[in-house]
């Protein structure tokens, strides 16, 4: 699958070609390059990945050496046999090649004309010349190889104002290399990855171990960062954890259209429960607007969802207004001390379920977030224990992911109130500063809706409760 050719004064170039992946396969698409031009590569190490019919295949390098050219960019589809890249043979061969007279053609030239029709040059300035590392620089040759032994004799090593790729900077940082000391062999003397590696290996950088793992193609740290910005058209090598695609399916199916079918058992149960609640309770809904600026900032910091904050604020407000943390069964009204917080979890087309975070008043935002996540996950997996959906004293529902802003939730009997948390949306709002001056500001706002049972409490209580939640969320 590879052939070789040589160029005057250069080491042997090995072609990496699109392999034959099956008898019926005529072409393949490059999906990732694991290397960049100038990177060292070992034989059989994965150089790129190609895809056909949703199968991703790793292409091994046919030889050890340095990546001289990348000819096919990501997402391009080419036919079998197309040259994908060229490998310049390894440092020993380079030394031998360098010992030859410039212009000598080495004997193993077979040089089939590579399919250049779709070829792109990853680094135009290199024009197919092998990127080299090691000490093969010879004076009089074009400045294709910097003096990587670190003796500073290279041309074009204008160190002032040079810019470095992220990869180069990271390697330099890891090894404590002063990049100003490194001669660059890239276009305009740009320091490339192999320059800094060679500098380190030469001992001038004080490195004690080689920074790259080339013994295994499966080391994800081989090319950890994308130098794509530094080499337009070159691949953005991704981390090397391999994987394959399970195809992405689209929307789920619903019931067959136009044909009546029976509701599922869960749907019927939900319907009965909701209807009974509306028939039982004197349901009334109150809304309040909340500025979520503080929550948005804090949740990013803690890495938890907004729901955890609303839950925590509600729990604190319930402790202040225990009349809402209660059950009303007939004429029996039971106030609860602790909060068992129900969280409505969608089960998709099957319906929804309300797992309960028992002892929620003892949990922080992070703790609540973790418990909610765990319960939701087990709810979806249909693995909740019966006790985990019982005993709730207050419920929060949070369907705002579709962008809806208000709802009138139905109370989860025998509880007396349910809080609805919808989308957080940026809005222009009037804000007043400490001196009483008004201005218009853009704030992430949400509307909390509380449905409450007028048999158990009155509007003033529900409004005070909402104000208490708002106060906590806004951090006043």
């Amino acid at each position, binding site marked *: 699958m590879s052939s070789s050719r040589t160029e005057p004064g250069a080491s042997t170039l090995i072609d990496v070609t699109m392999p034959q992946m099956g008898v019926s396969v005529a072409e393949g698409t490059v999906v990732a390059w694991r290397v960049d031009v100038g990177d060292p590569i070992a034989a059989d190490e994965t150089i790129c990945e190609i895809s056909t*019919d949703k199968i*991703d295949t790793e292409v091994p390098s046919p030889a050890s050496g340095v990546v001289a050219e990348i000819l096919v960019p990501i997402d391009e589809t080419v036919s079998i046999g197309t040259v994908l890249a060229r490998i310049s043979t390894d440092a020993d061969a380079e030394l031998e090649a360098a010992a030859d007279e410039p212009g000598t053609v080495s004997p193993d030239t077979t040089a089939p004309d590579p399919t250049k029709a779709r070829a792109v040059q990853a680094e135009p300035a290199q024009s197919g010349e092998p990127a080299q590392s090691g000490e093969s620089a010879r004076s009089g040759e074009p400045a294709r190889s910097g003096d990587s032994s670190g003796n500073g004799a290279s041309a074009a090593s204008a160190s002032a104002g040079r810019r470095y790729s992220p990869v180069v900077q990271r390697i330099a940082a890891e090894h404590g290399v002063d990049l100003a000391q490194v001669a660059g062999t890239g276009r305009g003397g740009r320091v490339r990855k192999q320059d800094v590696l060679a500098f380190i290996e030469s001992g001038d950088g004080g490195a004690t171990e080689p920074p790259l793992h080339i013994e295994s193609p499966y080391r994800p740290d081989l090319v950890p960062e994308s130098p794509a910005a530094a080499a337009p058209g070159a691949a953005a090598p991704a981390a090397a954890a*391999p994987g394959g695609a399970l195809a992405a399916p689209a929307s789920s199916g619903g019931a067959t259209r136009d044909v009546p079918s029976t509701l599922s058992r869960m749907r019927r149960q939900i319907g009965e429960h909701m209807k009974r609640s509306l028939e039982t309770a004197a349901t009334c809904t109150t809304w309040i607007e909340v500025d979520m600026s503080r929550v948005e900032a804090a949740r990013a910091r803690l890495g938890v969802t907004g729901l955890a904050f609303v839950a925590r604020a509600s729990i604190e407000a319930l402790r202040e207004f225990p009349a809402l943390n209660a059950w009303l069964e007939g004429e029996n009204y039971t106030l609860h001390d602790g909060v068992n917080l129900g969280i409505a979890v969608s089960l998709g087309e099957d319906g929804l379920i309300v797992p309960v975070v028992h002892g929620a008043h003892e949990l922080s935002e992070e703790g609540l977030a973790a418990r909610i996540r765990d319960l939701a996950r087990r709810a979806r997996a249909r693995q909740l224990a019966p006790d985990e959906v019982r005993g709730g004293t207050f419920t929060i529902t949070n369907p705002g992911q579709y962008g809806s802003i208000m709802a009138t939730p139905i109370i989860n009997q025998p509880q007396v109130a349910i809080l609805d948390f919808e989308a957080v949306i940026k809005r222009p709002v009037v804000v007043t500063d400490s001196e009483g001056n008004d201005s218009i500001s853009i704030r992430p706002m949400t509307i909390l809706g509380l449905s409450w049972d007028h048999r158990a409490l009155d509007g003033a209580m529900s409004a005070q409760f909402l104000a208490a939640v708002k106060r906590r969320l806004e951090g006043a």
Partner: protein
Amino acid sequence: MASGRPELWVCHLGTLEYREALALQESVRAARQEGELPDVLLTLEHWPVYTRGRRSAVGELPMGEDWYRMQGIEIVETDRGGKVTYHGPGQLVGYPIVAIDDVVAYVRTLERALVAALAEEGIGARGRPEDGPDYTGVWVENRKIASIGVHVARGVTTHGFAVNVENDLQPFGWIVACGLEGVQMTSLIKETGRGAGQMRCFRRRAAFQVAEALGRRQRLVSLAALRARAGSTPAPAAVA
């Protein structure tokens, strides 16, 4: 007659986190590449997870990651090709880790095996190679029942197939699956009208048919046996 065939070791793993299963696949693959193991088929289910491939677009998870996590669905970045997809309990996942030389023929083989296994359940399913790569997988009429995605490294496959047996199909509706607009997902129980509890039986049918289609003799092995052969294979953190 069967004794002359090479073996396919079939190992059922229960329900695993995606990352654990990926690590296990990689160690089995390493052992397969070294010839320490014969061909292997891992069968398992995943905890709810969206896996996002290298070519996934930002808009494929439109609800925002927090919301999906709140629904109990983890999001895992993988370095595979392809786009976002969903795995969850009730979906049979099969990871054949086998040496192959023709990748397309291999995918057609997997499709054939799954069609045969579904036929035993009374479902008339088919592959659609004539419709192009986007239709890789197994279909019942125009409804997709199984997805296939394969990765090949040094001639050895990882990843494989996912058949919707009795899983919740809703999470497929929460992602934007580019290139497959309007495709409806279906499942074994949806097609047959049977209740849950089909997994055990279907898993065995599928494993048998995969072995048949690959021309292998099935041998059921434990994870411990697999690990004993693959010397350095690390144990998954938990196997349910």
